[in-house]
C-alpha cells in the first residue's frame, strides 16, 4: 500500500486532461524513483466522483492534480489543503459530484487520508497552456517537500525501506 498517492484527475477532453498530463509528466520525470520504492504511486483518474475515496484509501498523503477555472491566467497553480476547499474553488466536476463533493463525503465518513493536498491548475484554451513538462517542473520542488514532510511522520516508510534509505539506497 503506497503511503503517498499522486492522482491526476480529469477526462480525455482537451483542457480537462490537465491533471492527467501533469501526473504523467511527473512520473516520466522520475518523481516516484526519487523516493524509496513503493512510497509514491502516481495514477490518473477519469472523473472518479465518489470513487476518489477508494483511490485514496490507505494513503497517508494524497496529492490531487486537477484542472481549475477561477479566472486566473492559464497555467496558474493554486495549492490547497483539503480543509481550505469550498464551493468557490472552481475545480471542474463530473455530473455535479467532483473533488470537493468527494472530499466532503470522505470527511463525513471519516474515510480520508490524514492529509490531502489539491493542486488546482488553471485551465483554458490548449494553446494558452504551458507545456505539461514546464508545469511539472514548476510543481516539482513543492511536491517533493510535501512528500518529505509526510515521510518524516513515524510509520510512513516501512523499516526495511528506512534501512535501505540510510545505506544510500535512495536519494532524498
Amino acid at each position, binding site marked *: 500500500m503506497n503511503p503517498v498517492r499522486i492522482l491526476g484527475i480529469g477526462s480525455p477532453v482537451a483542457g*480537462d486532461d490537465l491533471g492527467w498530463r501533469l501526473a504523467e509528466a511527473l512520473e516520466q520525470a522520475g518523481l516516484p524513483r526519487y523516493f524509496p520504492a513503493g512510497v509514491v504511486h502516481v495514477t490518473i483518474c477519469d*472523473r472518479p466522483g465518489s*470513487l476518489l475515496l477508494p483511490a485514496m484509501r490507505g494513503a497517508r498523503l494524497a496529492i490531487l492534480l486537477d484542472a481549475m477555472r477561477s479566472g486566473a491566467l492559464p497555467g496558474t497553480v493554486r495549492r490547497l489543503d483539503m480543509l481550505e476547499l469550498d464551493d468557490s474553488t472552481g475545480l471542474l466536476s463530473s455530473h*455535479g459530484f467532483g473533488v470537493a*463533493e468527494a472530499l466532503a*463525503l470522505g*470527511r*463525513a465518513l471519516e474515510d480520508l487520508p490524514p492529509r490531502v493536498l489539491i493542486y488546482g491548475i488553471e485551465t483554458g484554451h490548449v494553446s494558452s497552456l504551458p507545456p505539461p513538462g514546464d508545469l511539472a517542473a514548476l510543481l516539482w520542488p513543492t511536491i517533493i517537500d510535501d512528500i518529505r514532510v509526510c515521510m518524516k511522520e513515524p510509520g510512513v516508510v516501512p523499516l526495511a525501506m528506512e534501512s535501505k534509505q540510510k545505506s544510500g539506497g535512495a536519494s532524498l
Partner: protein
Amino acid sequence: MTQSREISLCVPVLARVEGEGALDLEVHDGRIQTLRLRIFEPPRLFEKFLEGREYQEIPDMVARICGICPVAYQMSAVHAIEGVFGLAPGPWVRAMRRVFYCGEWIQSHSLHIHLLAAPDFLGCSSVSEMARAHPDVVRRGLALQALGNEIIRFFGGRSVHPVGARVGGFHRAPSRAEVAALREQVRAALPGAEALVAWTAALNLPDDPQDFVSVALRHQDEYPMNEGRIVSSDGLDIPIADYESHFREHQEPHSTALYAALDGRPYLVGPLARLNLNLDRMHTPVREALGRTGIAFPSRNMFHSIVARAAEIHYALLEANRLLEDYTEPEAPFVPAVPRVGIGYGCTEAPRGLLWHRYDLDAAGQVLHARIVPPTSQNQARMEADLRHSLETLGLDRDDETLRQQAEMVIRNYDPCISCATHFLKVRVERR
C-alpha cells in the same frame, strides 16, 4: 383577485455533463398556465458525428455520449450493426454482454439512490449530510457503486467510456481465475443489495399515485436488458424495428432536446416502467424481497422508482452471479463481422430506460445515417406532466423555495442525464 407570477428555475451548464436546463412556470389564478422543462442535450450531435464512420468505430464513439451509461450506448449500437450484418455472436458473448450491462445498472442505480435521490427523502441537502446520519448506508451504497464500476472495467478495460466491446463480441475474454475472483465480490455484495430493497421501501416516500403509461422491453423469459419487444402498459407489443411507427419525436421551441410521444401521449421509461411490465421476469429472491416491502407492483407512484432501482441492483447481482457460474473461456471473444448494406435497429434498457438506435450502413459498413433516441428525451414530456401534477397537488400558493425543492425532487426522481444539475436549480422569481 387575479394573481400572476412567473417562476424561473435555472440549471447552470455543467462541465463534462454539458446538460443545461431550466423550469419556466407561469401561474395565473392559482393554476399553472405554462410549464416548460428546458433541457439542452448536446449528445444529439453525435448522430451527425457518426456519419461516414466505419462500423468498427461506432462502439467506442457512442460510449462517449454518456459517462454514466456508456455500456447502454455500446450495446444498442452493436446489436443494431450486427442486425445489419446478420451476425450472431453466440451464447458466450450474449451472456457476458448481459454481465457487462449488470455492472452498469449496479453502478448507475447505486449512484442515483445514494448520491442523488435518498437525501431528498431523509431531509438532507446532500449525501455528505446524509453520510453523517447514515454512514453505514452510504458506505454500502458506495461499495455497490464501486463493484458496478469494477464489472464494467472487467469487460471494458475502464469504467468510464469503456473500450472492451466491439461488433461481434469483446476484444478480450477474461480468464477463469479472474472471473472466479469477480464472482466472489458479486456474491459478497448480495446480502447488502437485498437489504437495500427493504431500506428504500422504508423511506418516507410521498404517496402520490398518477396515471401514466409505462414502456419497456419485454423478453420471452428474462428481465430485459439487451433484447426483447417494446411493450407498454396500454397493450402495445411491437418489434424494435417498428419503433418509428408508434413513437414520434418533435421539437419544442424552448428546448434543443426532442420530445418523444407514444401515439401522441407522454410515457415513462426507466426502472419503474421496466419493473411494472416485467415483475414476473425477476429472479425469485427479488420478487420475495419486493413482496416483503408491502408495495404492490405495478405501481402508479413515481416515487417508487427508488425501490425499483434497488430491486434492479439486487437482480443484476443475482444475474451476474448466475451467468458467471461455470464460466469457460471461449476460443475467441468475438465473431468476425462481414459488412453489408442495410438498416439495423438496436434497443436496450439503459439504467434510465429505453435506448433506441438505428443505423443505415453502406456495403462497406460505413454509417450513412444514424438516429439515437435516449431515455431522457423520452421521459421529458412525462416529467413535465409529473411536475404539473406534483406542484398543483403540493399547492401553488407555497413559497418559491418549497416549489423549487418539490420541482427538484420530481426531476431527480427520473434520474435524467442532467439529474445532478438539478441539485443546483436556482430560483429567480419575477412577480408581476
